[in-house]
């Protein structure tokens, strides 16, 4: 079990790194577009489409499982103070169970969208260039699926302590 959790955390850190790469690329791409547009009058084509359909989707959905594991999901902790430790454990279990169901459902339906997009070869038009977007549609089901795995594992093994942040 310990080895499984260790492996899980390694893999999840990898997800965070991928999310980080998407964030940095977003920054550099937009920065380069501003420079090219203002100084060389040659904006980078399809910047808008690539930012919204690739970087944003990647940084929002790939790190979900890592976020679940690191206790980053925002919860309302009003009743926690009046709950007994046994009730908190029970509530944690129920939350993990419900979360697993929701993530799994999200993974399933977004997966079907991805399959459809793959078959039709979904794309957007950026001025006159065709930008295929179907690969990006695979990111949400991957993110949700991994998050479902993490919440499943959490039902068996305890989760780390949560820290508030905003």
């Amino acid at each position: 079990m310990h080895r499984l959790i260790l492996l899980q955390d390694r893999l999840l850190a990898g997800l965070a790194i991928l999310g980080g790469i998407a964030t940095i690329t977003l920054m550099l791409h937009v920065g380069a577009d501003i420079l090219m547009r203002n100084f060389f009058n040659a904006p980078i084509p399809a910047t808008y489409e690539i930012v919204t359909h690739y970087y944003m989707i990647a940084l929002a959905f790939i790190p979900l499982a890592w976020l679940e594991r690191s206790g980053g999901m925002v919860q309302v902790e009003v009743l926690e103070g009046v709950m007994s430790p046994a009730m908190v454990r029970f509530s944690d279990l129920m939350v993990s169970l419900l979360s697993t169901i929701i993530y799994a459902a999200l993974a399933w339906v977004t997966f079907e969208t991805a399959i459809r997009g793959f078959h039709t070869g979904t794309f957007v038009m950026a001025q006159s260039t065709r930008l295929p977007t179907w690969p990006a549609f695979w990111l949400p089901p991957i993110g949700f699926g991994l998050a479902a795995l993490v919440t499943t594992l959490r039902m068996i093994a305890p989760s780390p302590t949560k820290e508030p942040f905003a």
Partner: protein
Amino acid sequence: MSIATGFFGVIALFVLLALRMPVALALIAVPFGGITYMLGITPAIGILSNTPFSFVANWTLSAVPMFLLMGFVSYHSGLTGGLFDAAKAVLRRVPGALAISSIFACSGFAAVCGSSLATAAAMGRIAIPEMVKSGYSASFASGAIAAGGTIGALIPPSILMIIYGVFAETSVTKVFMGGVTIGLLTAVAYSIVVLLTCWLRPDIAPPRPLDAEGLDTKKAILNIWPVLLLMVIVFGGLFSGFFTATEAGAVGALGAIIIGVVTKRMSVTIFKTSMIETLQTSASLFIIGVGAAMFTRFLGLTGLSSFISSAVSGADLGYVQLMLIVVVLYLILGMFMEPFGAMLVTLPVLLPIFRAQGIDLVWFGVLCVKLLEIGMITPPVGLNVFVIRNVASKYATVAQIFKGVIPFLIADIFVVIFVIAFPAFILFLPSLL
């Protein structure tokens, strides 16, 4: 019939939240269940499968991770370190100089950071020990910084305002401009609190001016050049039309990193920490946003949104009564919820009402963010108070900090009344655009 489903959905949402369900997942579960019940499983699956992608693939939202990165890099690399000294140097002859300086340092920090927690943490670490050393009560000092931190989300950039702009379909730049006014208004109101406290309770806030010793005004002001440069790049470029408000985030993040590297304040660890916090905050925010978008669709389908807006119009509620309800609603939610959750569970209901009533949505964005920020310092869940407790645990307990916040909360009430009484004051700067 379906209006009843809508009501039931709102209740179910709050029950799930109270049972410690993550805000995002509760916001996804309720519309899915509700739409399945009303229209069957196929439309429910349709909304579930389309919303995640269509909500996140949003150009304006791309400013969120960028402004977060800019703020976290500025904070962790200490670009903003000199702000407090500069404010002290300028304000040293004013009674309560240290407290007022810390509030204005918060305002300066707010111009490169969009989160009130980071602002409170950054200033708390530097200012509270110094204030306690020179005779302020720990309770008052920590209360001042917890409250001062809320300015971080008022003065642009502001993550809350970007998310509001996306949901209200209104100009983020205009809400930002209104944020300048409300941020400065808040800083002035807090400074008045400090002055009054110095006058009435010199035992908790010593009124004597600061020692000028060791404070070289010129040097202190020159020391904040990295922050000033970043502000000039971001806001200068923004208002001269070089780039848009959305792109300003990327420029700010890039600028903060470059200035950090050039001034040798940047390290791999600092970059990693900033990146982790950026990702955590943006990913958790976006998934809440996905849920809120689904919840909005659900309430629209049940007819509850239009039912409530017509009920409000039919009840002939005056402007003041309507605003009173809104203020009380946010104050109560703010006691228990963090601001993004509180904003995103309420906007689906409130925005249709305001649209129907012809209330300016730029103005409401400013008021809404102000009310949410008050929730950051009200008990029992006041995140700014908790973060101050973390950075200044040597000095004050949570209860003492909440007590120190009280005078600033009273000032906030006056600010809110002012905003409601004089909408034109808030809308003056946005109207210049």
